[in-house]
C-alpha cells in the first residue's frame, strides 16, 4: 500500500523516463532532471532509485541486444510499466488534491 506512493525524487525519475520514451537511460534521465529542476543528480542516487522502482514494479530495465551506446559502452534503458504509469498518475492527482485551495502565488 505504502508502495503506491512515490518519493519526490522517484517521481522526477518516473516523469523523466516517461518524457524520454525510447531514449531513457542513465545519462539522458539525469540530464533531463538536471535541466528541468536545476538540481544536480548523482549517478549513485539515480541507480539506487531506479533499482528501487524496478523492485516495486514501476519501471522496466532492459539492455538492448546490440549495444547501441557510443563506443560500445553498455547502456541500460528504462521504460514505465503499467503500474508505474498508474503510480505517477496517482501521485500527481494526490499532489493536486493536496495543493487544492492552497494559495501558492504570493
Amino acid at each position, binding site marked *: 500500500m505504502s508502495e503506491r506512493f512515490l518519493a519526490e525524487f522517484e517521481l522526477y525519475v518516473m516523469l523523466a523516463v516517461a518524457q524520454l520514451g525510447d531514449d531513457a537511460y542513465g545519462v539522458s534521465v539525469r540530464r533531463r532532471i538536471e535541466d528541468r529542476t536545476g538540481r544536480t543528480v548523482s549517478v549513485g542516487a539515480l*541507480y*539506487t532509485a531506479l533499482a528501487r522502482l524496478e523492485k516495486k514494479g514501476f519501471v522496466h530495465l532492459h539492455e538492448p541486444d546490440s549495444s547501441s551506446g557510443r563506443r560500445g*559502452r553498455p547502456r541500460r534503458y528504462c521504460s514505465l510499466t503499467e503500474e508505474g504509469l498508474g503510480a505517477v498518475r496517482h501521485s500527481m492527482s494526490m499532489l493536486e488534491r493536496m495543493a487544492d485551495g492552497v494559495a501558492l502565488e504570493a
Partner: protein
Amino acid sequence: MGDSKREGTHGIPRVSRWLLARCLHDDDRRFALADLEEEFDEAVAASGLRRARAQYRRQVFASLGPALRGRFGRTGSNTLTRTPDSILRAVLADVRTSVRGYARTPLVLVVTVLSLGVGIGASSLAFALFRSVVYPSPVGLEAPEQLVTLYRGTPDGERHGHQAWADLDALREGIPQLVDVAGASMINASVEGPLGRQTLLGEEVTPNYFDLTGIHAAAGRVFSPEEIRSGDPRVAVLGYDAWQRVFGGSVDAVGQVVRLAGLSFTIIGVAPEGVRSRLIPFPTDVWVPVGSLSAGGVINEERRDPSSRGFLTLGRLRTGATIVQAQSSASRTAEALHDERPVLWTDDAGRAQPITVVSEAGSRVRPELRAGGSLIGAFFLLAAGLVLAVACSNVAGLFIARARKRRAELALRRSLGATRGRLIRMMLAEGVVPGTLAGILGVSIAYLGTEAIGALTLPVDVPLRLDADVDGLVLAVTFLTTVAAGLAFSIAPALEGARVDLYAALKSARGTGGGRRSRFRIKDGLVVAQCAATATLLFGAALFFRTLDVATDVDLGFDPDGIAVASRDISTRELSDREGVQFVRRLRDRMASLPEVRAAAISRSLELTLYQMGTSVSVAAGVEPASDQLAEAWRNAVTPGYIEMMDIPVIAGRALLESDDEDAESVAVVNETFVERHWPGEDPLDRVFSVRVGEAYVAYRVVGVVADGTYRDFDDPPTPFVFTSLYQDFTPRFAIALEGSTAEAVLPLLRSEIDLDEGEVQMVGPSVLADQVSFQFMHLRIASTVLGWGGIFGLLLAAMGLYGVVAFAVAQRAREMALRIALGAERLDVTRAVAREGLTLAAIGVVVGVVFVVWVARFGQGILFGVRPTDPVALIGTLGVLFAVTLTATLVPARQILRVDPMATLGRE
C-alpha cells in the same frame, strides 16, 4: 570488469573510479560507470580534461552515499531495522543487538570468554616460546647478513662443532673473504652483587667480539682489542637481564667493581635488552675477555691447547664476498690444519674434520639442535592448538544450544522480513564481542605467561631463562587465531540458527518442539572431537609423567643423596702439581674433620652435570698410538674416597687408595663398558692403556672395574669411563664434595669453610648435587607439566561440553520422556537411555584420541625414555580419569529425568 581498458576512458581519475565501482551494486556497476565515462568524454570535448576530471570526482563523491545505500539497503531487512548507511553501521547494529542479548545471559558470555581466552592465550604462548627457542630473531647485531659462523667438525662426526682458540689465527689468515674472526666460549660464574649472590651464564669472548658483531652498549661501553691489550683485562659487559638481577637495573652499575667467579671485575657497560648467546638459546648474562677468568688474567695453557675446542667462531664477510667463496677458502684452511695436526683434525671415523660456513640466520640455533627443538616445539603448539580447538567446539556447542533456545526469536525476525543471510550475519556478529574480549584475555595470558617463564629459574645453579616476548608477530598470530576461533565457533551455530522452520518454531514458542535426534549432528560431532582432543592431551601428559617416573627411577650408577658440591679454581696460586696435591689433601682432610661431615672428596668434574670432559685413550700401550687406534672415553680425576662416597659399585679389583699418590705408579679404575669395548671376555686387571693429556700420552694400569653409570646425560648410551687419581692427574680446577646426613646440612660449610684467596675462581657455587642432577630431567618435567595442565583444562572443557549436550537432550526430549513415563516406562530405563547416548559419543572420541597419540608417539620414541606408546599404566590411568569424568558429566544432567513430573511437562503444551 573488463570495461576498464576501453578506449576513450583515458584521463578518468582512477582512484575515484575504483572507489565508486566498489560501492555500486553489482547489477548497476557496469552501466553507471559507462554513463560517467560518456559524460566524461563529452566534458573533455567541451571544457577540457582538467574540468572533466573535477566534474567526474564531484560525481563520484556525490554518488558514494546513495550507492552504498542502494547496495546494502537492497538485500532485504528494510522493514524492521532501519536501513544502515554502511557495512560498518550494519555490523555495529548487529553487535549492539548481541550485546543486549549477552546482557540477558551473562553466564554464556563469561564461559565463552574464559574458555576461548585461555585457549588463545595458550596457543600464543606456545607460539612465542616456539619462535624464541627455534627461530630467535637477532638482536643488537650490525648488518647480520654479513655475519657467518665457522663450524668445525667434531670427533664423533657432527658438522657443527666449535673451534680451538689456537686455530682462530689460522682461520683469520686462511679465509681472506672475512674482515675478521671472533670467538665466544660459554662460561658460568657466580657474582656478588648488591642483590646478593647470583650465577651468571655468559661468554668469554675474543676482545674483537663487539667490533665484529656490532653489539653496542645500552649504557656505558663495550671493550675493544686495544683496551684489553694495554689495560686491565678484568672488565665485564653485563647483559640487560643480568643487570636487572644483579643491580636491580640501577644506572650506578657501570663503573662498579664486583666479584665475578671470585675475581675483581669492573663493569664497563650494559648490553641492550634481548641480546642472546649464540651458544645456547638464552640471553647472555655477561661478556668477559678471553683469559680474564684464569689466573693472572692471561690465556692459560689449557686454552692454548689446540685440542681444547670451546669457541663458537663468528666471521664478518667483506663487502661483495659470498658465503660460497668463504666456504672454499675455509675448506682449504681445514686441509692445511689437518696437514699440520693430523690427529686433532681427524674424526673417530678417520675422516678429516671439515669447516662449514653458515649464515648468521642459519646458525642462531645450532643446526643439530634445531630439528629436535622443532619437534618438541611442534608438540607444544599441537597441545595448545588442541586446547583451543576444545574451547572453540565447546563454545560452538553453547552457541548452538543458545540458537535453539532463540528459535522463536529468529523465526519472528524471519517472518518480519529478515533474510537467511541477514540472520547468519547477525549470528556471526554475536561472535564479535566474546571474540574481542577473549582476544584481549588471550594476549594478557600470553604476556603474563612469557613474564612468568622469564622469571622461572631452575632449581639448579644454572640460570637458564627463556626470553619469549609478545611482539608484533605474536600479536598478529594471536589476532588471526582469535578471528579463526571466532568464526569457528559462530559459523556452525549461525548455519544452524538460520535453518529455522518458521511454522514449527513459532507454534512451539518455548522452542522445545520440532527437533529430531538426527538434527543434532553438528553438536554430536563437536563432543566427539572434544573428547578426542582431551584424550590426546591427557594421554600425552600421562606418557610424559611415566617417562619422568621411569627416568627418575633409573639406576644412575651413583647416589647423589646427602651430597653438596662447590667448585674451585686455585690456578692463581701457581702451585706445582706436587704442591697442588698437598693443597688438595689438606683441604680434603680439613673438610672431612668437620663434625657434620661424614665424608669429603675432591674431583675434577661431577657426575651427570654439565661439567664433564672427554679424553682420547688407546689400549695400544707403550708407543704413541696411530690415529686409528684412538678411542674416546670420559675421564675424571678423583681423590680416594670419591667412588665410595658416590656409592659406585666396585665389580673387580679395588677403588683408588691413598697409596696411589704422586710417587706411585699411575693407576686407573675403568667401567664395564670400557672393558667390553677394549678387552671383551678378558681379565682387565693390570692391563695398561694410555690417555692423551694435552698432546702427550700417559700410561695407566687398571686396578679396578666399576659398574657403568650415567655421566653426562641420563639417557646417553653406555660410555667408556676412566677414573684416575687426582694425586697423579692433578688439575687446579676441581670440585669439592661433602656428604652429610642431608645435603642441606653440609651445604653452608662450603660457604663458611672455604676462604677464597684474591684471584681464586669459584665457577659452581655451593649447591646440592641432587639439584644439579635433576637438571637432566628438566625437559621431561616441563613437557609433562605443560601437557598435564593442558589435559586438565581440556578435561574440564570436555566435561562442560558433554554436560551441555546431555542436559540439552534432556530438555529437548522432556515431553517424550514425560509421555513414556506416563505410559509406564521405568524412570531408570529412560535415564539410562539418555546417559548411553552421551557415553557413546565420549567413547568414540576417547578411542580416536588414544589411537592418535599411539600413532604420534611412535615418532617421538626418543623423547619417551624407555616408555612404550602403549604403556599400560599411562593408558589405564588416562582411561580411568576420562571414564570417571564423562560418567559424571553425563549422569548429573540425565538424573533430571528422575525428577520429571509427567503431568506438569505435558500440561505445558
